[in-house]
């Protein structure tokens, strides 16, 4: 139990802070959230600056062009960039955190050479084609079909919840190549160029009124077999490898932001008089405890991941990841409910940032495995309870 950072880690932090202080004032103005092209340009510009400064692919292995940083350095990076108000990874998300690491781990040398450098340099945008309308938590229902025709796959189906599809160059796509195979067998991983004929992108509006996601329709889309990463029907395993690259750091920035929000909320309450209500005040106090604990839980998960890596393991966060996810999705919703209690009638005004974020927070108990599924995972895989039916 050593919460202090090592000298090396503190040096990394100091260097990063200096760089951020230099670079942030030189950034162009933030783009209009509705202008996808401008967002892409802005995010890729930021990625290029990271690349030039030696921060691109921080957690990627060195042989893939990354920096081979430890999970703790990655934690520090995410903490400091969020605290400094630096741009978020944005359009680079899928490339840097999912598709890239997958290709780095499972791709052929040619595939790595083709796809990885443009991700790191901020030249190509990837999106993710995993979810389908009918396959929520249940991958057995993944129905996008790929039929082999010579040296191409002919793909037909549809994907949902795809971010940045409008401006992506590539899509990491899961398709069903063996319709007879049970559950997650018979699935294959393909890299689909988004300008292939037959690909249609339709924005998907969320309840928050935003268009952060899209649906992608695939009508006899031809994808070269060369674009397949890993073996045919082995796509599920290939995909799972990706997860190891988060190493417990997935929500670092968000938790830092939540803690800042909490302090701002307390000030707002002080200002509008709700602070005098003991119930409101104590609710904020309890949330302070929640988010302190969640921050420590992240540090713990990162420590375990780092240890696992040193031992030659994958660094996939085990128990801690699901525990964190369950508690955090709950706490985040409670945070924005508390925000509404502080705001009062102003919570009905979407011009209030927190009113809008309250709406977005509703997805947290659903996305990336509903809380129901997460509970099942914890019960069966961690606690060893008999398989539920």
């Amino acid at each position, binding site marked *: 139990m050593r919460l202090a950072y090592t000298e090396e880690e503190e040096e990394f932090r100091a260097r990063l802070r200096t760089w951020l202080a230099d670079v942030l004032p030189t950034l162009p103005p933030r783009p*209009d959230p509705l202008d996808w092209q401008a967002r892409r340009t802005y995010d890729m510009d930021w990625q290029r600056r990271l690349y030039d400064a030696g921060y691109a692919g921080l957690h990627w292995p060195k042989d893939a062009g990354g920096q081979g940083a430890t999970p703790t350095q990655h934690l520090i990076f995410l903490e400091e960039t969020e605290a400094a108000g630096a741009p978020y990874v944005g359009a680079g998300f899928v490339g840097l955190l999912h598709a890239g690491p997958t290709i780095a781990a499972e791709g052929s040398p040619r595939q790595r050479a083709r796809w990885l450098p443009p991700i790191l340099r901020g030249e190509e945008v990837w999106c993710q084609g995993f979810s389908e309308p009918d396959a929520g938590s249940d991958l057995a229902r993944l129905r996008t079909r790929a039929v082999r025709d010579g040296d191409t796959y002919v793909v037909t189906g549809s994907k949902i*919840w795809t971010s940045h599809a409008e401006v992506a160059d590539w899509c990491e796509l899961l398709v069903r190549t063996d319709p007879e195979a049970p559950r997650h067998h018979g699935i294959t991983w393909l890299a689909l160029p988004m300008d292939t004929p037959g690909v249609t992108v339709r924005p998907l509006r*969320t309840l928050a009124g935003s268009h952060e996601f899209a649906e992608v329709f695939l009508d006899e889309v031809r994808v070269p077999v060369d674009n397949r990463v890993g073996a045919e029907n082995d796509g599920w395993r290939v995909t799972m490898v990706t997860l190891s690259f988060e190493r417990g750091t997935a929500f670092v920035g968000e938790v830092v932001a939540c803690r800042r929000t909490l302090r701002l909320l307390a000030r707002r309450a002080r200002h509008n008089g*709700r602070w005098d209500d003991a119930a409101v005040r104590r609710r904020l106090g309890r949330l302070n405890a929640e988010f302190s604990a969640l921050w420590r839980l992240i540090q713990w998960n990162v420590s375990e991941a780092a240890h696992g890596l040193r031992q030659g393991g994958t660094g996939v966060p085990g128990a801690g990841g699901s525990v964190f996810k369950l508690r955090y999705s709950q706490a985040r919703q409670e945070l924005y409910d508390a925000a509404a209690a502080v705001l009062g*009638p102003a*919570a*009905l005004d*979407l011009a209030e940032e927190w009113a809008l974020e309250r*709406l977005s927070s509703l997805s947290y108990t659903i*996305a990336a495995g509903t809380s129901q599924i997460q509970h099942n995972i914890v019960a069966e895989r961690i606690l060893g309870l008999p398989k539920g039916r």
Partner: protein
Amino acid sequence: MDFRLTEDQRALRDGMRQLLRARFDREALRDTVDGAAVGSGAAAVDGAAVGGDAAGTALDSGLWRELGQAGLFALRAPQSAGGVGLGLPEAVLLFEEAGRALLPGPLVASHLAGSAGLVAGAEDGTAVVTAVEGTGPYGGPTPPVEHLAAADAVLVLDEGHTVRVLSPGELAARPMRSLDPLTPLHRVHGRRESDSPGARAAGGSGREQAVGAGVLLREAVLLTAALQLGSACRTLEMAVGYARQREQFGRPVGAFQAVQHLCAGMLVRSETARSVVYAAAVTVDEEEISAAKLLADTAAVGNARDCLQVHGGVGFTWEADVHLHLKRAWLRAEQWRTAVTSEERLASALLCPI
């Protein structure tokens, strides 16, 4: 003592349900949302303050007159005054149906004005009436005013005062980017002095009777609770319907205990709320009305959230109706007596001698 609805009450409720099915079905609801969303969708993202009103009113004046003809607004006006001559229990049943259908518009204020004869034309739906509440739960700002741009008159309801009726132009108000796409909202700052022709006393439209705001406030709280109850019942139906049909892991998700228990909890919320909402409609007891609003708010918000959870990703889309119920439920929880006020009143009541 017989808690059950009478046959007349059932018939009245069924009639309202049929009317709404015919005139405001899901397609009409979504058309209204799409109409209103042109402005508010953009407003939610870019910087311009465009309220739903500016993008075209969400109110269908034809439908409003039909509701008037069906007696929704004049329901409690005496037959001698051209009203239907029914009571609060019947009004609660109709408002429950309106809540179920997510009917937009200042229903509560228009009903109060029409039944108490405060604004000419309110009773038959030719005039649209909205309202301003007194101070908020912390003595702070009043809740926003809904449908101000579409309104012909505004009731001012302040505990301990008589009702005043203003014309919308008399209010100094700024449009908000309303959370609820079907309910344009304005933040009220006060009276506009420049062009104010002075507040008309309660009992406009010629009649001079002074009405205390207290009675109308209580009724507004109760009717809002009824709207919440209807919404809670509807989101339960939506959740059960979806859980029966959506399959995951080779069977309907409704066969999973986790989903079953969410749905059962929703029924417990709505039926508990129903018992006290209906009772409060009969007793018109101040304490019971607070209980009704508190539990109906909890049921409407809780059921909408659980309905969203049962729907999973689908529930998070704009195309699903769940969010419309949740947003309206959040809005109504801030209107006409918040939880803080209700709980404080219910607490104080515990100290009164029986």
